Structure formats: C-alpha cells, structure tokens
C-alpha cells in the first residue's frame, strides 16, 4: 500500500517544476505559447488538487477536455432515470449522478420525493440489491467511458449466471477516441498536445492514440493521475514540441500497455455495439456510444420499459458545452460560483468530482480566488 507515495514526493515534484520552467524559458521565448488538453476528468481533478496550473511555466496552458462521464450525459438521460424512479423502479447509481440537473429535477430530488435510489461504490453491489428484492425491478444507471463500461457491462453475464432476472441497465456508455476526433475537427480549437487518459487507456491501450500523432501530428502522452505522473506527462509533451516530434508516449506504463485490456475488449465485442451518441455540450458524435446488442435487449432498461432518451432541456446560461470542449475556463462562465456552486449546481460540470467547474471551484488556487 506504500507504492503511491513515490509519485507524490515533494522534492521530486518541485525539481520537475523547475525543470519545466527552464524548458519553457528556453523554448517558448517569442510568445509562442502552447495549449495542452487533459482529456480526462480525473486529470482535471488532480491538476486542480495539486495546484499544477500554478506551477506551470509561462506559455504552457492546460485546458480540460470532455472526459467527465457525468458531465457529458444529456439531461434527457436523467429525465428518463427520474421517470423510472417515479414508477417505483429501484434505481442504482454511482453517487455523482444524484445531483446532476435533468430538465426539471434531479435524482436527489426524486429520492426526496420517495423514489428508491441506491448509491453504490461498486457495480457488483447492484447484483446484491437485485437479488435481495427479486419481486422488484432494478435499473443500474450505466454511464461512463471505457473504464466504467467494463465492470458495468460485466454485470450482464454475471446476472445471467446467477439467474438475477430483475436487473437491467439504462445505458449511456461513451468512448473517448471519437470525442477526441470531434475536438480535432473543431476549427475553433487549437490543441498542441493531448494528455491522454490513464484508466481509459488501460482498457483501450496506448496505441489507440496513434492516429492523432501520425495523421494529425499532435503529440500524445498517456499519463497517470499522481502529481509526478502529470508533471512528467507535461514534460513529455513539451519535449515532443521542442524536438518537433509527434508520437504516443506512455508515461503510465505501470498500468497501461500498448494493446490494452484484452478481456475487457472481448467483453465489449460480445455484449455491445456502437451507436451515435449525444454528448452534453458536444452534440451528436457518430459511433461514439455503446449500447447492448439485440441479443441482450432484455437487460436494456430502455427496451424493457419502453423509454426513449431525448435530449432534454438544459439551463440556457450554462456554458458546460464550451467548458467541456476546453474553450472556456469555468471561471469565465457568468454563473460560476455566483449562481452555480457544488451545493446548488446549474450544470453537470459543477456536480461530478471530475467536472471542470467543480474542480475549479473546490480547488481554486490562490490566484484565482478573486472570483
């Protein structure tokens, strides 16, 4: 249990910060700033938590990407979940989803109104809940990227095996690479390097990013979530830029391999198929979602209960879309910290621990405190 401390070692971290400063000084002289995107919400969190922006050299900007699964889940999905809760179905969810605003309500409010909504830390808990009340329908709120999709989709064969018939999934699974494609295609965005997700990459493998490096000439580094991982990731990106390279580097080799997790990939192929998916803020991205194949439709809550997931209605002034695309710093949203706070969130980015607005709010660094 002690291995993690090495990646939080203050002396090493500060030495790296100094190294980055020198690197920036020698290479980014003539106002040639670079913008790197951390795609994943857990990176956003860690960057804020360890005040890494404050430690970066001048000319290096980090923008946050669409990698918070809660933030990109459309309001219409929540509306469907709230409706099922109203019908008396047991809704099982990870905690972050409870306070995300749907069109008119949230799951937390549905719970206060008598809805049976259970919060779990592990997808496996859903099996126990469903087994304990066989006469009631149980629906798991199956959102997430590849990392979460693996254990949640894995509930289907497990439930079959244990003959638990009353458990189904309301899916809104999403995959990261199509979202990165969409960002690259956006003419308003300039991304000089991708800090690629840590745990998503453990599933899909570092090679998944080769097209961005080879075809688009964008340097990529897969980095872990500890402060030293992130600093090393930034250093890797900066070096590629200075040396005129565009490659996929894997800083997080203690967890991520080039090919990824074969077992999870086989599971995906067996159970899931791609679908066009609506991302809150980004719109519909072709083949960016995963749904259960027809053969498993009895486990698909949308089929089972005949619900359709519409786009829903989002707060007009919420800028989550631009925040998710890295176009807007959360603090530049007019509602940030004034109307929209973690206790009373307007948009999903303020709810999830991985949301850019929540991270910016919770871990605002001293310079930012003015807002």
């Amino acid at each position, binding site marked *: 249990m002690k291995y993690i401390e090495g990646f939080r070692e203050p002396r090493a971290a500060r030495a790296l910060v100094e190294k980055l400063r020198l690197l920036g000084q020698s290479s980014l002289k003539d106002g040639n700033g670079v913008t790197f995107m951390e795609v994943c919400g857990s990176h956003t969190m860690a960057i804020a938590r360890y*005040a890494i922006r404050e430690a970066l050299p001048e000319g290096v900007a980090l923008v946050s990407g669409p990698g918070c699964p809660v933030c990109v889940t459309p309001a219409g999905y929540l509306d469907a979940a709230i409706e099922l809760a109203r019908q008396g179905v047991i809704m099982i969810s990870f905690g972050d989803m409870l306070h995300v605003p749907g069109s008119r309500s949230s799951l937390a409010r549905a719970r206060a109104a008598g809805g049976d909504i259970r919060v779990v*830390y592990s997808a496996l808990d859903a099996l126990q809940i469903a087994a304990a009340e066989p006469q009631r329908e149980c629906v798991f709120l199956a959102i997430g990227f590849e990392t979460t999709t693996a254990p949640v989709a894995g509930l289907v064969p497990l439930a079959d095996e244990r003959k638990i018939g009353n458990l189904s999934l309301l899916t809104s699974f999403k995959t990261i690479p199509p979202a990165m494609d969409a960002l690259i295609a956006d003419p308003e965005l300039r991304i000089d390097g991708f800090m690629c997700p840590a745990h998503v990459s453990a599933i899909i493998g570092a090679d998944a990013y080769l097209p961005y490096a080879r075809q688009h000439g964008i340097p990529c580094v897969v980095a872990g979530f500890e402060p030293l991982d992130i600093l090393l990731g930034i250093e890797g990106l900066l070096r590629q830029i200075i040396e005129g390279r565009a490659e996929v580097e894997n800083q997080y080799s203690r967890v991520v391999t080039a090919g990824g997790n074969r077992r999870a990939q086989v599971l995906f192929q067996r159970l899931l198929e791609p679908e066009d998916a609506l991302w809150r803020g980004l719109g519909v991205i072709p083949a960016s979602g995963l749904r259960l194949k027809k053969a498993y439709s009895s486990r698909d809550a949308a089929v089972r209960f005949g619900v359709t997931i519409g786009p829903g209605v989002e707060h007009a002034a919420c800028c989550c879309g631009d925040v998710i695309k890295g176009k807007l710093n959360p603090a530049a949203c007019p509602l940030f910290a004034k109307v929209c706070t973690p206790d009373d969130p307007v948009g999903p980015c303020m709810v999830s621990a991985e949301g850019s607005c929540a991270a910016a709010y919770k871990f605002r660094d*001293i310079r930012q405190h003015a807002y």
Partner: protein
Amino acid sequence: MKPDTVQLGHGGGGRLSRELINMAVVSRFGDGPLRGLPDAATLSANSGEVVFSTDSFVVSPLEFPGGNIGHLAVHGSINDVAVAGGWPRWLSLALILEEGLPFAVLDRVLDAVRDAAAKADVVVATGDTKVVERGKCDGLYINTACIGERVEDWRLDAAAVRPGDVILISGTLGDHGMAIMAARNGMAAGGPVSDCASVYPFVDAALPYAAEVRFMRDPTRGGVAAVLNEMVEGATSAGIEIDETCLPLAPGTQAVADMLGLDPLYAACEGRVLLVCAAGAADAILGAWSKLPGGAQAARLGHVSAEAPLAGLVAALTVTGGRRIVDLPGGEILPRIC
C-alpha cells in the same frame, strides 16, 4: 428460554425491563451514583464552574475497525468537554434500542462504554433505556452527556488566534471517517483503524503551556478542513496555510481515501486534538505529545498567516509548490459516521 435479542417488552417498564436494566446496566455501572437506580444522580464537584456537553451517536455500522458505537459515545462527549478546557468527570448514558437487536451486540457495546469510561476515569452517573419497534431505529442509538470541572488555567478563545500562531494535531488525520467508509464498503481488512479515544491526556499534557494556547478543537465531522475554515471564516486579516506535504496520515487511511476518492482532510477524527498556540510553545507541546501513547505521529499542520490573499481562507501548499484553497466541506454523500 430467554430471548437472545431485544424484545419490545424490554421497554414496557415491567419485569422484562427490570431484567434488561439489571443485565445491561446495573451489572456494569451499578456501583457508583447509579447504585439503587435513583431518578437522578447527585454529584460533588470541587470547583465552581462546570463544562457541559452532549452528543448523540447514530453510527452505521455499529462496530468498525478500532471500536464500536459504545467507545464513540463515551469519547465523543468527553472530548468535547476536554477541548473546551474541562476535566471530564461524569457521563449520562441514554440508549435507544431497536427491537431485535442481538444481546451479543448490546453486550459488546456496553462493555466498550464501561471500559472506555474506566480508562478515561469518568463515571457513568445516570442513564435511560428505551426500546422502539423494529425499523424505527438502526440497531442502537446512544446519547451521552458529559460534565467536567473547569480547569482554571485554560484561557481558550478562538478570537485570540493571531498571525504567526502554529497549528498542531495530536496524531494521524481522518482515521475514524475512513474506517467507517471502509467498513461500509467491505474493505476493512488491513485498512484504516478508527482513532476513537479520549483526548484528555493530550489536553492535559499541553496544560503547562496554557498561557500560550489559544484554542483547541476535536476535528470530528468535516475533519480538520472544517475546523480550520471555521477558525478563519470572515477574518479580514488572517488566513491559514497548511503544508500538505507533511500531513500525518496512516497508510491504510491514505489507501482507502485514494480508492474512494476522498480527502482525509475532510474525514472525521474521533481521538485527536487540533491545537493553536503561539509559535514559541509549539515544539514543547509536540514534545510532550509525542511521549504519550498514540502520540508518536503528532505533527505541525501549518500556521496562521497575515498574507493578504489568504485572508479568511485556508490554503494548502501542495507537492508541486502551488497552493490551493481548502474549502469548507460541502453536503457530500457520506454515510453516518458518528
């Protein structure tokens, strides 16, 4: 045959009630002021002023690594009295039992109350027992109140805190909160162990330096982050800077916090004192603490700063050398921890 769980009849005031009181209470606490079960206890205090505090305990699960609700109920109230400058002397003990509670659990909890009270040298002086229908409470709830005698030398006042003062903690952070979270999520083995204990020995060890101690608190719900934020809330010329690179953290607590994505700064302690003192007294107090059982990890958390951008804020210096704000804990979804 005798039932092995609590029955509704145990609360009816009749023979069964008698049996329960004798078995549960008199056998453990019947020698002091509770002898003969009078309606009220008469106590004789030495000094003029008393310090008085009460707390209710609804923790789930009832038993966790490092203790059970009984330990918690004793320490919770005596610690509140101790950090307010009182010498804890007497406890009240009110039990609300759910029909169906196994006597084996009740016995373990009351043994814990007896042992914790004896170790802390406080007397259970009065009490009450009620039984409620199944489903009306979660196994067992406890309310305790503690009366202590005011210790003359303490001049504790949060308003006396000033820039330059040092913030000390008597041991590792967040162990109780994380032990509960771990127990709830089935990851108790090898994980965090609750720090549940009396803090009075630590308070007493700091007494020789009382003139330089400004303020003490036990950082329970909301953890150290909540106490520090309360200290500087609304302050216009003082803030707090803590050094995140040298927080005392038990490895099991750190591991579970990382796994669940929680910050030990926000997790409850149930056996620690957070003390603010003049810089000159810090080393002496830390030295005295480190000699006490459980005090080896006592540490300096940070200091009170007059730096203008910090006014009214708590900031943490991170491993990268940047600083972030440590906010008041929000209304997070955490289980009942005390």
